[in-house]
């Protein structure tokens, strides 16, 4: 903990020194960014834009994780699903994010649905590939045990399959959350009238580096809170059975 704080303090010092060397136009110092955060918070714009972005992140993330888990599980367990799904996966994996976003806006208009679908489609193949890897490594022995004891499909999914997939789901969620929020910003920049991405786009046109940093850092803080108070406790809960290596 002490080292983490020390490292953070060093980052602030480097920022401060950098700001003195380059001047406030290129890199404003930490306190002016902090003041900008406070004034945006007081006007209510900060909460509004952070909320809009967060909502998009959450919806797109849940959509991609849910679909990706189901597809990954099917593709990992059934050869035919893998043959059918794999070409789609390769295409989606190699399509640049920007192409998916532009096409979604062209085909569905500059709408909220288009924005969220575009983000989810960018995340979907990665979640699918990760979960498929997990489904391929499921323990045959436990499967047979569940079959001999005639466990119901629900019990098998909940108590036999999902716990084995948990590390893969956690990995997909971890990498997914940060990827999704980066893509949401691009989607907002290109075609939404609000959100962190929209604010940063406006600030870019005005060359307002202070505002860019204020919004970016505020959202990073939000994601840090989510990681600490949501993702990590869930992870601790699902791995509680592992003997601790103290």
């Amino acid at each position: 903990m002490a080292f983490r704080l020390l490292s953070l303090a060093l980052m602030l010092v480097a920022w401060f020194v950098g700001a003195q060397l380059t001047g406030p136009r290129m890199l404003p110092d930490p306190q002016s960014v902090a003041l900008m955060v406070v004034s945006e918070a007081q006007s209510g714009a900060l909460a509004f834009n952070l909320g809009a972005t967060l909502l998009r992140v959450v919806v797109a993330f849940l959509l991609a994780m849910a679909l990706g888990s189901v597809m990954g599980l099917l593709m990992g367990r059934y050869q035919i699903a893998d043959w059918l799904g794999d070409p789609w996966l390769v295409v989606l994996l190699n399509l640049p994010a920007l192409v998916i976003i532009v096409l979604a806006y062209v085909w569905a208009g500059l709408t909220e649905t288009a924005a969220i679908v575009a983000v989810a489609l960018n995340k979907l193949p990665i979640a699918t590939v990760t979960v498929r890897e997990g489904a391929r490594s499921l323990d045959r022995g436990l499967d047979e045990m569940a079959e001999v004891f005639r466990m119901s499909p629900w019990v098998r999914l909940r108590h036999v399959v999902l716990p084995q997939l948990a590390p893969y789901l956690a990995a997909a969620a971890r990498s997914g959350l940060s990827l999704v929020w980066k893509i949401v910003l691009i989607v907002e920049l290109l075609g939404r009238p609000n959100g962190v991405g929209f604010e940063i786009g406006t600030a870019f046109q005005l060359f307002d580096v202070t505002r860019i940093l204020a919004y970016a850092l505020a959202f990073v803080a939000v994601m840090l809170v989510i990681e600490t108070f949501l993702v990590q406790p869930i992870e601790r809960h699902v791995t509680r059975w592992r003997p601790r290596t103290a």
Partner: protein
Amino acid sequence: MSPVGDLGRLEVSVKHKAFSAATGGTLRVIDGLTFSLGKGEVGALVGPSGCGKTTLLRIIAGLDRDYEGNVGLPDHGRLGMVFQEPRLLPWRTLEQNVRLAAPDATDADLDALFGTLGLSAHRHHYPGELSLGLARRVALARAFAVHPDLLLLDEPFVSLDDALAMRLRDELAELVTRRPVTTLLVTHNVEEAIALADRLFLLSPSPARVIAELPIERPRSPRSPEELAALRGAIARKLKGAQ
């Protein structure tokens, strides 16, 4: 599903079972193997390692359907099985492991089972915190908790030290005496088979078939060394005569 056996008997007739070898060609593992086991009896399939015993057990359990022949399970065909490895869910406690397999088991039932098998103190432990001997007991408790019509045991005491294997064998004998259940035990250990079974089925080396059936008088009771030696001699003669 397998047809139900007559009068609650286990009827097994596997005409042919082969695996395709990695190098091409096929490997016959079972050839014309037939036996039947009465309700409430404990049968032991005894044969050399690698003679196809586990394959046979998997066929009876319905895990391998790629064979010629048929298997008639006793009564409703409810199975309890103890695999060679414990096969517990590491992310569930002992009690949850048993309850997930046997959702209808009553609290009193589980208390008694855990008591007999010396597991009462470990109910809320996770399998990763247990020794192999304890994990094996949980697998036994799980198999008994479902009140099976047929109990299948695949070398349940393999890779335990002799003293522990002996103690678990006695506990199993006690359980089978207390709550009779048609049981099929697979083992390469003649002592184990004599100590537990009503009836031995001696298997040939691969491809497996039954070469002799040997009823055991006064099953699961103490035996004098002379009696044991006589039994062992009879088994050895039959095994030799078949070759």
